[in-house]
């Protein structure tokens, strides 16, 4: 790895950190804007001002905003994002119980969807205009147009209600066999994959086709290269940057998608936790979850950026 690449990568890392700081400010100040806070809500209208003040002091809400921000931010960095306003538990513990489950859902989904999507995208670019391309195009338009809760409900209707193969609700208490794993993950993963594969395949196709219209592809054809070789050896290496980008964008979509899917299947992950936090207006919990999701997004984008930099031939020595 040469110094230009190293410099660029370090630059990206720096930008990522700055972005994360800005995000944390946006998140914190947005969630602290409204005067009525959870304390008031928790104690009800009848609470004495003293009781409210005491509880506020307990949560540190009586300090000025920027101090609270600093306190909160340093807590985040040290892995101590605060105490739930609703049940008084450590937010960190609540999340760390759920995190592995969400991560494994995301991991399984990515493992399934990325290879499938890349294959579909590259194939339909190779056979652009063919029947295969047209049908996949129709399918992918359909999949990106349909809300994921519809796909989820249809999946439940077919597999749980009509066929009775899988249970509608996930119980990940303990997974012992492959069959159990299948029944736990199958429907959430299937739902997430539908949209994800469609999005990624479309973007991959576009990236490859973009390369196919460049003069060096014409040149390769005029050297007698067959379409297969042209795509795999010429177009694909140059499409790596855009494709990785597409994958990262889609996977970050996954972060939002899990919110819906976890809720529908009652999957005990971070997203369900966060939705519950929203409903009960448990701000420390919501803030921490949001930062977690944003961190996930930034890491994905960072990886994509670095891949694009490393795959850029102009930076090679």
């Amino acid at each position, binding site marked *: 790895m040469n110094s230009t690449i190293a410099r660029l990568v370090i630059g990206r890392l720096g930008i990522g950190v700055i972005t994360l700081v800005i995000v944390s400010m946006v998140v914190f100040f947005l969630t602290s804007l409204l005067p009525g806070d959870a304390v008031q809500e928790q104690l009800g209208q009848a609470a004495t001002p003293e009781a409210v003040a005491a509880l506020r002091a307990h949560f540190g809400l009586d300090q000025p905003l920027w101090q609270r921000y600093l306190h909160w931010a340093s807590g985040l960095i040290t892995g101590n994002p605060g105490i739930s306003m609703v049940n008084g538990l450590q937010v960190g513990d609540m999340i760390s119980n759920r995190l592995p489950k969400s991560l494994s859902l995301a991991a399984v989904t990515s493992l399934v969807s990325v290879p499938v999507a890349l294959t579909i995208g590259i194939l339909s670019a190779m056979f652009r205009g063919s029947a295969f391309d047209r049908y996949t195009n129709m399918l992918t338009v359909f999949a990106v147009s349909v809300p994921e809760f519809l796909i989820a409900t249809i999946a439940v209707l077919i597999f749980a209600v009509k066929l009775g193969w899988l249970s509608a609700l996930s119980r990940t208490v303990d997974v012992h066999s492959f069959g159990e794993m299948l029944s736990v993950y199958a429907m959430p993963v299937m739902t997430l994959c539908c949209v994800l594969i469609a999005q990624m395949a479309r973007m991959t196709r576009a990236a490859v086709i973009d390369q196919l219209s460049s003069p060096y592809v014409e040149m390769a054809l005029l050297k007698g290269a067959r379409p297969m070789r042209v795509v795999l050896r010429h177009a694909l290496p140059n499409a790596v940057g855009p494709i990785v980008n597409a994958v990262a964008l889609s996977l970050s979509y996954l972060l939002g998608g899990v919110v819906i899917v976890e809720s529908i299947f009652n999957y005990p992950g971070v997203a369900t936790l966060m939705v519950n936090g929203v409903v009960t*207006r448990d701000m420390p919990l919501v803030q921490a979850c*949001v930062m977690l999701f*944003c961190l996930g997004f930034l890491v994905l984008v960072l990886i994509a950026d670095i891949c694009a930099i490393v795959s850029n031939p102009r930076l090679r020595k």
Partner: protein
Amino acid sequence: MKSNINQSGSQNMATSGGSGQVAENEWLDNSVPVTAPTKHRRLPNPGGFLGFILVFFWLVMAVIGPMIAPHDVNGLVSDSFFGPISSQYPLGTDYLGRDILSRLLHGAPYTIGIALLATSLACMSGVVLGLVAAASGGWIDALISRVQDAMIAIPNKIFALIMVASFGSSVPLLIVMAAIAYMPGCYRIARALAVNVMTMDYVLAARTRGEGLAYIIFIEVLPNMLRPVLTDFGLRFVYVVLLLSAMSFLGLGVQPPDADWGSLVRENIQGLGIGAPAVLAPAVAIATLTMGVNLLIDSLGGRAKR
């Protein structure tokens, strides 16, 4: 003389009818130059036509839907829950025995109207900011871009959740929330387009003529961005519809007694087990709307790469 010419003769088995080049051209599409005059358009393909019909239909319904609804929207008109399709209730009845068609038609202005407003807000502010950033460059550009990048780093659904968590859910909030959530995307595209157009010689020509910033932005640059921006508008509209429906589906969107299509799905989710039209109809309505827009955009061929 080299002999490889003669070898080629023996190889020539004259099979196909010389149409090799045609097949190859089809997948190697050197697309038309951007500046080509687009006076004569090809007829839209069947998909595009279907898309146009769907979009047109739903736009009309968003306006006149509530007026032509056959039943009272909140009236418990039937005593069968999750009633089937019948001549009296063309889309069946819901979990309380209300007419689904009427509820669907009353939901149209919410689903479509909120999304349209939010998308328009997002696009307009995104385009204005993008133009300002592209035209001024320097630290203004850097500042706006950095903040927009940070906004993009908050996944839209997550952003929606924080907004609802901090401010509670209401129609104005949903509009503002969706607009803010999708503005960075509009901004990115608009800025990229504007930066491209700004480097064109005709813009330089206007600058060396001594034209002011407003003239350059509105007369020289904007007209050349319109088509891709409109395409982007359509795409973003789809995302906004999906986001708002998802929020309603979670119970965090439009609040009762009002109901958009997402809320209708949520209300009637219990009917799923018996395959009630009450839950399928609103879901299908959402899907046809978003698919119509997608098909329409695809047929116009200007799908911007995200």
